[in-house]
């Protein structure tokens, strides 16, 4: 039972990672991060049910709250990035190149 939830969670998380790594559009990257957060939430809730405690539920709530804040910040950053270069391709922003 629990394995099904965890497998789903891992699949979601891996999709998120692949999205972050492979996609060049910053919007997609942000959405992939949200996906990873929700994969983690799923795991939390599953474990909460398994152990019959509320800890996992509370953590999931907090992650959702943080994710909301992060989405707000992330969107603001994306707007600023767009103002800088006029594009949303993450390869354009490579100032850290050595």
């Amino acid at each position, binding site marked *: 039972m629990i394995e099904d939830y965890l497998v789903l969670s891992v699949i979601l998380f891996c999709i998120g990672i692949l999205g*972050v*790594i492979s*996609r060049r559009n910053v919007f997609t990257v942000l959405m992939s991060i949200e996906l990873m957060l929700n994969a983690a939430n799923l795991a939390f809730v599953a474990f909460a049910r398994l152990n019959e405690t509320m800890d996992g539920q509370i953590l999931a709530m907090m992650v959702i709250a943080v994710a909301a804040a992060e989405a707000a910040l992330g969107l603001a950053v994306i707007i600023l990035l767009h103002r800088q270069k006029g594009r949303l391709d*993450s390869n354009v*922003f*490579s100032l*850290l*190149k*050595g």
Partner: protein
Amino acid sequence: MEHTVNYLVCIPLLPLAGAFVLGMMHMLTCKNPLPEKLYSFLAMLGPLGSLIFTVIIFSTLREMPAESRYLTQNMFTWFSAGDLHVDMGLFADPLSTLFLIFVTFIGSLIHIYSIGYMAGEENYGKYFAYFNLFLGSMLILVLGNGPVVMFIGWEGVGLCSYLLISFYTKDRDNVLAGNKAFIVNRVGDLGFVLGVAVLFWGLHSALGGAGFDYLNIKAGASTLTAGTGLAVCLLLFIGATGKSAQFPLYVWLPDAMAGPTPVSALIHAATMVTAGIYMVARFSFLYASYPFAGDVVAWVGILTALLAAIIGCFQRDIKKILAYSTVSQLGYMFAGVGVAAYSAGIFHVFTHSFFKALLFLGAGSVIYALHHEQDIWKMGGLKKKMPLTWIVMVIGALALAGFPPFAGFFSKDEILFMALAKGHWMIWLIGVCVAGLTAFYSFRLIFLVFHGKPRDQKSYDNAHEPPPVMTVPLIILAVGATFAGFFNLPAFFSGDSMVSTWLAPSLLEHHSEASRVTEGVAMVLSIAVVLLGIFYAWKKFASKPEDKPLTGFAKWGEDKFYVDEFYNAFIVQPWIAFGRTISNFIEPNIVDLPVKGTTWLYGVLGMLFKVFQAGYVRVYAIYMVIGLSLMSIFLSQSL
């Protein structure tokens, strides 16, 4: 008997304070200098004050019983480490008091003379500040209670000679002469420092933490092993050859003529060059135990005397002649202290300071009168224009040549006779020859400068006697040069050897007796040689001197036997080449290798790792995922 007094410190402190005050005044007012009278008044206070205190010390010491004649003063503990305990203290015994007497007396006279000689010169205040510092350093050297305190003065006179020799800094040659004096002295100083270090190393158990001063060293000297003692003597003598201008380190003294003439007088007569003799006499208790060290000292001294006298015969510059005569006379003094006739050597220092100061100041008057002309072949006939200078210079030359009854006769003959009496007949023989040469070159100078016809009419017409402030010291010194010899009249002339008796408690000396006949014959012989030298100089230079280019041996002599060139080619140039090699090759390639290698290493590492810095956010995300994965695996392993 109370040996501790509190006024000894005043002797060096007064000139040093004068140097400080004058130096400060000069520094603060060098744009618009204060009146010269103020400077000269302040400059005179220090030396005269020291002279007064010297007289006080002399009379105090006279009242003490002869075998315990000394005064000490301990100011504070300078440093104390292990067995080495050094007090900043002063020590006056008959030997140092004799030095004090002529250093302060002649020093004061030279100060007075300088007031006239330096009048109108630039940096008048600086000159007197250095002069006071010079005198103060010499007084510390003489009064120090141990080799370490002596070393302060030893270095101080070295510094001041450097400052004063290159006093006319606008001329590059003067600065180079100052450098030469300082560097050559440094070679000797190394010997001195090593000598003192070895002395302490040999004595440290005997001292056992007691003060490292002359009284304790003397008490413990018998515990030194033969090798250590000999090493100490020879190393200290290296120091003495540097400071007292002996072979092979005499080369700085003739070049020291670059400074103002009173400076030469101060270096040659009162301070600096006598330091080496003083030091050897001070350690007479060591040198007396090692005859080999004494022989080395005596032979180096007498050979230097011969070499310098030969060079002196062919020089053209009036001051260079006098400089070589100083080297030569210092050689006599070392011959004296070397054959363990310490009081004779010290007495020659005493008389020499009078007639050498006289000769230098007289030469200064001539140079002053002729507007800085120093070539004796451009002088001549000055007797009529400068009768007083002529008289004092003749007295000085007679004293230098050692003609009775002038000062040099008694002291030099005492050294020669002592050498003979102690069985060093070779040294005696060379000494007699040098006496003849000395007479020859000193009267060559007199005849060429004062007699004959003027060879440069224009400067002859402008010549005149210097002002009284310069002539009065000359007269006083001339009186001294005439009569100073009588202070130590030997028994041969039914005298009582006053100076030798006075010095006896400070020196470890064995008087050897020789027959009166030997003494008389030796004396007559040396007078005859001196007369021969004067006669030859008269014949050659008095009436019709010929200034023809020198050839053969004389040319060698005029060129100082190419000793400077030899040093330049075999020591200075290789040293410079060595320095170049280090700075051009070893320094950048070997010394800097670790430093440069480190920067290179980090550069290469940076080149390697910068590949990972792609700059794309996605790549960093990959790194993060890999890192987190590894961390997770590691954590799951350790569960």
